[in-house]
């Protein structure tokens, strides 16, 4: 039985999170709006209108291109891609054909199995989105709200070798897009759309065989599912002696099956030519430097650095470089705390993450700032409060926005380290519990924990437990 290798290339469309559309000043995000309310003459292609390029689109494109290690063109051109479709008001899409913003580059995917897959990027280009259509009986309903939203299209080489790798690509890409702040990359909202080109070949071959295109898959799980199904189908066909045809397929997520789509003009000639209403995009060195001045350390590099510099386990480092706000929070807290980063990491991975999940906030939105967290940790280290007080402070600071020190003072949460106060209570406990005292003196040394507990209870948890134990031992060993 022949063994087959899977060959997958992905085409992603990324919706940028600029405030406005690429060629007009309508909003870029109109997810919740009534149809045809976020429109203007330019994005609806009225007679006589002209496109005007949004500077932020170029800047976000450059950030992404740099992150993908692509070659950025200092001069790139817009081109018209001509075809008829009701959601395309001008009858052409302004896109970039042969001289796009960037070309080349790659994304490395560390796979859970332990190897890294490098995915090459052929091309990265800017373009405008079309509107939305939906069917209603024999009619189509058209909404132009989304028309003109800025998109980046990225095309990979046929470098992925499994549905899992494809899923990983999307996961990493989504992480990177959010990390860079260029897209919300929410697949369910269409911020990240993916078409997969899938083919199979006998293992060991380096030929490329006929591929099918799977379109409109709207979640990472669906991408994985759809590709797996398609691979199985292709293998079945080939084993049965049939050829694979260059179909375009649609994934029905309810039925969990692939459907053949009506083939558009598969050999469509879009008659590309330079967009005469726009000048070429001219990136000067000064502008490029300005855009890249705050280019962030990317997740993979930061993860490696966390492991090396902070001696964090890979698992922790992975979580702490998953999302940029959390990651920046961690690093700031570590630097302010100046103690063991693992302590900070524990707080983040447990309490802080829980807080974020429950509230839906991002780490930069917490009232419990890195500085406050560091303060709490320092206070525990210095014995001013005990660990459980420390934990309870997390929520208190987050709710009130007040500094830990203020809350400790206001609520009297500070550990009592006053020797005489503890001694007084300890003496009281010893006197009140002769049986236990005898048991202890008789050899049941573990009772010290019980005694300490009693003192703590009496002092409502505010005693420094170590000191309490020390004093009790003194009293008991008399």
């Amino acid at each position: 039985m022949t063994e087959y290798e899977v060959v997958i290339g992905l085409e992603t469309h990324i919706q940028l999170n600029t405030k406005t559309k690429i060629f007009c000043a309508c909003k870029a995000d109109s997810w919740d709006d009534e149809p045809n309310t976020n429109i203007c003459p330019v994005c609806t292609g009225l007679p006589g209108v002209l496109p005007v390029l949004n500077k932020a689109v170029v800047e976000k494109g450059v950030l992404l291109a740099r992150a993908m290690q692509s070659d950025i063109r200092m001069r790139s051109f817009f081109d018209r891609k001509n075809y008829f479709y009701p959601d395309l008001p001008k009858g052409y899409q302004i896109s970039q054909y042969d001289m796009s913003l960037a070309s080349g580059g790659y994304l490395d995917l560390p796979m859970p199995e332990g190897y890294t897959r490098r995915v090459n990027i052929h091309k990265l280009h800017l373009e405008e989105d079309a509107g939305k259509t939906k069917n209603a009986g024999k009619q189509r309903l058209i909404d132009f709200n989304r028309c003109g939203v800025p998109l980046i299209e990225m095309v990979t080489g046929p470098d992925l070798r499994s549905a899992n790798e494809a899923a990983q690509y999307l996961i990493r890409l989504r992480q990177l897009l959010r990390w860079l702040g260029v897209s919300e990359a929410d697949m369910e909202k269409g911020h990240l759309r993916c078409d997969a080109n899938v083919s199979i070949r006998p293992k060991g071959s380096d030929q490329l065989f006929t591929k099918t295109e799977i379109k409109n898959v709207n979640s990472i799980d669906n991408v994985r599912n759809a590709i797996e199904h398609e691979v199985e189908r292709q293998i079945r066909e080939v084993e049965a002696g049939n050829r694979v045809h260059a179909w375009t397929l649609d994934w029905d997520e309810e039925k969990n099956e692939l459907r053949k789509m009506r083939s558009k003009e598969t050999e469509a000639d879009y008659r590309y030519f330079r967009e005469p209403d726009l000048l070429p995009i001219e990136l000067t060195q000064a502008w490029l430097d300005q855009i890249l001045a705050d280019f962030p350390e990317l997740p993979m590099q930061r993860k490696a650095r966390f492991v090396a510099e902070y001696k964090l386990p890979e698992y922790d480092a992975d979580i702490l470089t998953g999302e940029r706000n959390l990651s920046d929070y961690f690093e700031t807290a570590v630097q302010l705390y100046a103690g063991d980063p693992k302590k900070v990491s524990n707080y983040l991975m447990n309490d802080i993450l829980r807080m974020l999940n429950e509230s839906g906030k991002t780490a930069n939105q917490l009232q419990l700032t890195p500085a406050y967290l560091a303060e709490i940790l320092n206070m525990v280290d210095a014995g001013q409060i005990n660990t459980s007080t420390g934990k309870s402070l997390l929520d208190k600071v987050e709710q009130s926005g007040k500094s830990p020190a203020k809350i400790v003072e206001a609520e009297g949460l500070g550990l009592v380290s006053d020797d005489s106060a503890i001694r007084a209570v300890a003496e009281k406990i010893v006197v009140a519990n002769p049986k236990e005292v005898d048991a202890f003196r008789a050899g049941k040394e573990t009772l010290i924990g019980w005694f300490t507990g009693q003192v703590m209870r009496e002092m409502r948890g505010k005693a420094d437990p170590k000191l309490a134990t020390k004093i009790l031992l003194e009293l008991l060993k008399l």
Partner: protein
Amino acid sequence: MSEEITIEIFNHLVSLAALELDEKQAAYLRRELNQQLKAIHELEAIPLDVDLKITPHGVSYTLETSPVLRDDIWLPNPNPDEILAQAPKVEDHYIIVPDIPHEKLD
């Protein structure tokens, strides 16, 4: 003189252009296209390897004379309904067009 745009090519162009023509118009247009192509063939005297930079516009723009790019600031259209008012068929704020009837697929 053989015609460059044959009837087949012409009909293909008509369908690409989303037009449909009556016979008289088709004949006239095809004839004029072929006449124009004769004039266009004058261009064959231009060697392709002429080392001349092609630009999308005749005038040249410098960095100083090029318009500044647009700032990313939202300017809502105060009257989007004026645009909808131009559409031939609107329902519930959607623009309505007929669908493309689906062919039966296997």
